[in-house]
């Protein structure tokens, strides 16, 4: 130390030492803030954005800055952009478009007083019942770390309308058909929907054929004579179930009344119960 004192003094010694072990010395801490352009996005709805703001409020340059933003489950990457005076100092990568994953931004050198914003555009999986998702952006630089979180509440706007139509008339011993239709007018899928329809005594079950959410979702109970369809999700659009029945050969003239119900675990339902009838005419 005596030699150093003579030649440089203590401060200069520290400066010299920092040249050797510079990366180990205390470095500027980068701050991070996280915002969302929509705190209540709709599943399957329009895109929204997370904005990560990074700043270096310290007097020194921050080196080896790394920011990570893992997207919450059900949130899909669409695009990203970097803005601000120091945008050129950062390079960012994200998951594939339409995939979940992490956005990672790096900067070898982030000047004192610098600021940069990272805009991440995302979409929401349509098959979500709703709920809270929390995103956390984390930044490390020079051995320091900071993190910021943002909570959003997903909305499910599914709106399933049920309708039932039937053959106008059928003869005893003949065949008739019914068409059950669900139209989901929302952006989100309806979640855990159940369709149920009991067969009247005048007819007997022959077959069912479903499209969309009705496909592979229905069974017939011989004990209760109920057609039951369990649909884990009913996406946006049209879904149809065709039911074929036989009319009893001994059935007198009359009317077979059908009634169907629809319930949904997430999403609104309209038109339930739906009714239709078939006139039985010799």
């Amino acid at each position, binding site marked *: 130390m005596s*030699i*150093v004192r*003579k*030649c*440089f003094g203590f401060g200069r010694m520290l400066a*010299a*030492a920092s*040249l*050797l*072990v510079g*990366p*180990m010395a205390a470095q500027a801490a980068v701050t991070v803030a996280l915002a969302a352009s929509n705190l209540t996005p709709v599943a399957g709805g329009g895109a929204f954005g997370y904005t990560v703001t990074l700043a270096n409020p310290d007097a020194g340059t921050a080196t*080896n800055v*790394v*920011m*990570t933003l*893992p*997207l*919450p*489950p059900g949130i899909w990457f669409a695009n990203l952009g970097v803005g601000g005076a120091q945008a050129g100092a950062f390079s960012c990568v994200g*998951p594939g478009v339409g*995939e*979940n*994953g*992490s956005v*990672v931004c790096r900067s070898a050198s982030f000047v004192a007083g610098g600021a940069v914003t990272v805009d991440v555009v995302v979409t929401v999986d349509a098959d979500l019942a709703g709920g809270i998702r929390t995103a956390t952006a*984390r930044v*490390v*630089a*020079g*051995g*320091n*770390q900071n993190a910021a979180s943002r909570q959003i509440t997903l909305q499910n706007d599914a709106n399933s309308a049920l309708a039932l139509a039937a053959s106008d008339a059928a003869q005893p011993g003949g065949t008739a058909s019914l068409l059950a239709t669900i139209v989901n007018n929302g952006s989100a899928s309806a979640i855990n929907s159940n369709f149920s329809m009991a067969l009247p005594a005048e007819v*007997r*079950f*022959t*077959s*069912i054929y479903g499209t969309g959410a009705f496909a*592979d*979702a*229905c*069974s*017939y*109970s*011989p*004990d209760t*004579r109920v057609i039951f*369809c*369990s649909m884990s999700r009913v996406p946006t659009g049209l879904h149809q179930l065709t039911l074929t029945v036989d009319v*009893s*050969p*001994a*059935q007198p003239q009359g009317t077979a009344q059908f009634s169907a119900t629809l319930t949904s675990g997430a999403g609104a339902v309209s038109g339930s119960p739906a009714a239709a009838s078939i006139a039985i005419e010799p």
Partner: protein
Amino acid sequence: MTPRCKRRIAEKLLALTMFATSLDAFAAVTVGLSTSNLAPVAGGAAFSYTMSLGNDALAGASVATLVLPTNARFIGVSVAGADAGRWSCEAPGAGDNGMVACEGGILPANSAATVTVVAQFDGNMSAGVRLATARFTASGQLSETQLQQNVANNASVLTSTEEAREGRRLYRTAHLQVIGQSSLISLLHSEPLPPGAALRFMAGTSGFDEHCRLDPDANTVDCVARRLAPGAYALTLVVDMPDAMFSDGFE
């Protein structure tokens, strides 16, 4: 500054450089790997892997990786410890398999950091042994360790049948309930039809009928499914009985 001072300072700087370089070159790195559950269930609760990273001297270019075992699905990652701020991690997407890679850059001697990775095993896997591999490299040194887990499959199946006759027509609906958190692996299910009966219609829920076919020789509907996720399945059969057994008229 006198020439003597310059020479002495140069000597000191050289000594410091050699000191730092020698530490860097011989820094020993260690990685420990543990898990919160050595016997997880396929499709069951999430568990964690913890990588404990250590270095006994100044180290550079530090990278730690955790390769998730086959069928393990990533959920989340976090870094803790006094030197957590030196580490940044990249991971697969939520629900994906892959590798968690963390970069620590230059680490001081005896730095302390633990990386915790939360994961879950895919419900569609059979029981078996899975290996997770953690690797820590810094300053050209390598430490690697593996962790073995015995993954269980807890699926079981309950079956029941409803049957009714209306005239010549026989209705039968078989219900299968796969219970547990794992998928049922290699299901064999057979529905024998009455002698002389003809299968008129078949429908299954959740695609179950796609696993089924009529064996005309044995007159059975045979279902073979490689895996069935937990849940309820139904197979509806409509069968026309032989004329000799029934008259028709919805008796």
